[in-house]
């Protein structure tokens, strides 16, 4: 059997896992960004509510 047969099988497995891994990393980064954004918006909202209460 062609020696490249096993090598290309390895490339196939590697490609599959790299694609999934890159997506998982992008999901984790997006999750962290959204959490940070949510905290900031919550802070702004509570400040706006306090400001409205005073008036």
């Amino acid at each position, binding site marked *: 059997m062609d020696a490249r047969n096993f090598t290309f099988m390895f490339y196939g497995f590697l490609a599959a896992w790299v694609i999934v891994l890159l997506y998982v990393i992008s999901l984790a980064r997006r*999750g962290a960004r959204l959490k940070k954004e949510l905290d900031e918006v919550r802070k702004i909202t509570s400040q706006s509510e306090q400001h409205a209460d005073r008036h």
Partner: protein
Amino acid sequence: MRDKLAIGLAAAAAGLLANNLYQMFMVLPDEALQGAIYRILFFHAPAAMVGMIGYFVALTFSVLYLTSKNLIHDSLAASIVEVSLVFSVVNLVTGSIWARIIWGIWWTWDYRLTSALVCVLIFFGYLVMRRAIDEPTQRARLSSALCIFGCVDVVIVWKSIEWFRNQHPGPVLDFRTGGGKMDPAYAHVFWMNFVAILLMATALVLVRTRQEATSREIDSLRRLAHTAA
């Protein structure tokens, strides 16, 4: 609760994948005609099937959005499309690597491969379009329409190996052929890997839908802050 379910599903998928990899490399022999590279098919075909199932579930939520106008259905459809697209890309890339050895070429414009590529491009366009539209109801309406259109191509991808003469192999799975085209030992590992990939995709969809819920919360808080100001 959703986080625990996602972690549970991911752990189950990891355990099953570890066992499947052991079966693939330590138990199953090389295939007589293809050699070692046939093992790529344990990821190539299940990734395609998981992607297609995902597109049809997304189609269901898109139709539900169009009938109910509930944005949660739109968010679910978008989350499922995104995860399905990842597995469709895995399918195309692994198929191309397999083809390089078995056919001697990376790519050919046959019906199955071309329709699968068109499917990836349609759903990639779906995600790009969602980023380009800010207004949520307009985004949801157009996304639902595009998802329905994309699913027509998914049917063509699925049936192309029966409808047309292709470079791509014809159906081999028992539920399409009535049996006899795949060794039972290979079929067992194949279906176990399908379950593992389906569990992994479900865990990813759960994480993604949670992010969509967070995005909706951010949008509503922004509107609240804007109104209060």
